[in-house]
């Protein structure tokens, strides 16, 4: 009984978190759309389409939290109550992170679509691409909650709870980095409309790097899950995923900064787009390697602990 109370409380909290994040992002998007509409009334149709597409993505984030609450509600027992509670709150946090980044991206895209109305199609494509990446981050958390919910029992509840929390942290970090880069890419699209394709390619590359960071945390959780049955395995696993999440957040924030700077450099000097992309990728590779080192050391040590 008490587990159900804990879970229900956590569930409503998670829903509120997700709704807050989605609402804030939608508010930002809506405001940017209104702004764009009075500045360029003649393209109000295009602006509305862009806005609607962005709003759907943010709405879906809250729906994912709803879905996971629904999935877990039927499985809550006293043994795994803590896990279920932490899992839904983690989903809420991840959805909030994704939504805030999406809001930032969509607002920048809408500004771009009134500043360069002829290229609003290009902007919309880039925006959609960015939003899909950020949406997927929450889906990664969704997937790991689902995987862990299938195997969790009393013996690994500590690890499983830490793992979903770590995934949420990593997703928030990745989303923050992606939001910064994508927003800069939207700005680059109107500052240098001729280079929109180049900017989009660079943006996509940068977003893949940041997405991979959350994917690394996902992979390590999956690997450790099979071993976290003893007390030692639980404690080590919890520490390991927390370490991975911290590393991923650091890498993602730095990559976001580097990516955004690359986008700005691309519109300031469109002829150098290829050189800038090469340098950007090298920088991103170094930052990513830092998280991969944590990955490797966790992997090696996990064999000794178990």
């Amino acid at each position, binding site marked *: 009984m008490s587990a159900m109370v804990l879970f229900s409380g956590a569930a409503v909290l998670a829903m509120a978190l997700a709704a807050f994040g989605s609402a804030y992002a939608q508010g930002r998007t809506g405001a940017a759309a209104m702004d764009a509409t009075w500045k360029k009334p003649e393209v109000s149709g295009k602006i509305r389409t862009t806005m609607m597409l962005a709003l759907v993505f943010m709405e879906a984030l809250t729906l994912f939290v709803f*879905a996971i609450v629904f*999935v877990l509600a039927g499985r809550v027992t006293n043994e795994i109550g803590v896990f279920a509670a932490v899992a839904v709150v983690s989903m809420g946090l991840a959805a909030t992170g994704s939504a805030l980044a999406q809001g930032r991206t969509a607002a920048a895209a809408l500004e771009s679509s009134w500043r360069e109305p002829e290229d609003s199609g290009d902007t919309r494509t880039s925006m959609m691409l960015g939003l*899909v*990446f950020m*949406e*997927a981050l929450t*889906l*990664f958390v*969704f*997937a*790991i909650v*689902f*995987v862990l919910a*299938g195997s969790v029992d009393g013996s690994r509840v500590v690890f499983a709870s830490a793992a979903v929390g770590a995934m949420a942290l990593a997703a928030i970090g990745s989303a923050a980095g992606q939001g910064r880069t994508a927003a800069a890419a939207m700005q680059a699209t109107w500052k240098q409309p001729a280079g929109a394709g180049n900017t989009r390619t660079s943006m*996509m*590359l940068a977003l*893949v790097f940041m*997405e*991979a960071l959350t*994917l*690394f945390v*996902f*992979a390590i959780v*999956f*690997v450790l899950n*099979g071993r976290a049955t003893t007390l030692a395995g639980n404690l080590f696993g919890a520490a390991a995923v927390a370490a991975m999440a911290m590393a991923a957040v650091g890498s993602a924030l730095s990559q976001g900064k580097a990516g955004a700077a690359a986008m700005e450099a691309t519109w300031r000097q469109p002829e150098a787009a*290829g050189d800038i992309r*090469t340098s950007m*990728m*090298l920088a991103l*590779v170094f930052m*990513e*390697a830092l998280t*991969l*080192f944590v*990955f*490797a050391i966790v*992997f*090696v040590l*996990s*064999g000794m602990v*178990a």
Partner: protein
Amino acid sequence: MDLLRLAVSGGGEGAGKSDVFFRLPGLGLEVTSIVTTTWAIMAIVLVLCWLGTRNLGRVPRTRGQALLELAVDGLRAFFAPIVGEENARRFLPLLGSLFIFILLANYSGLLPGAGHIRGLKAPTSNWGVTAGLAAVVFFSVQYSGIRKRGLRYFKHMVDPWYLSPLLLPLGVIEEFVRPFALSLRLVANIFGGEIVVLALLMAIPWFLPIVPLALELIFGGIQAFIFTFLTAIYLSTAVAEEH
């Protein structure tokens, strides 16, 4: 031992279920789904190349030759701005092979049933495979550097001689860290992506898995690109004369 088994199996399988078809006689090497998929990819590439180069002309007469020339020219034009025209030409066989194999290997994991039916599993979701590819890169880089520049290749490790006690170990470690990170980046991306798609398929099989599947299409291409891009950079720095 446990670690080794996990690394070779890609981390996914439990110890109980065996994926071994047969063992290669004499060597005792296990032939698993990953090996059979690798063979299939090799066969496809070989057959395509054989078909395309059957009757070569100065001007492409067959569709196969036109297609292959398009691929080779495209790859060379792609690497030229990154590593220079000469290096792009010299290293194209290695870079092109790596790119085509990794691309097909990544995409083989998107085929229906991949990972579930015996005999079909993305080779690059296995650390053993990507480590093997990275080992090829490691030896190619060392070989090219020493062949082009002789002992001067090691100069960057001892350059201001008074710093060499610090630079030498760092330089040696870096040479090993590069292929290590190269292999881990590829496998963690493909393996992680597979598990995400699998988990979402189990959770909500309608529409939702489209998002990670679409992302996997992008990831598969970009990871193949990043692997060869970094290989090209490592090779070109190894053969670059200092100024």
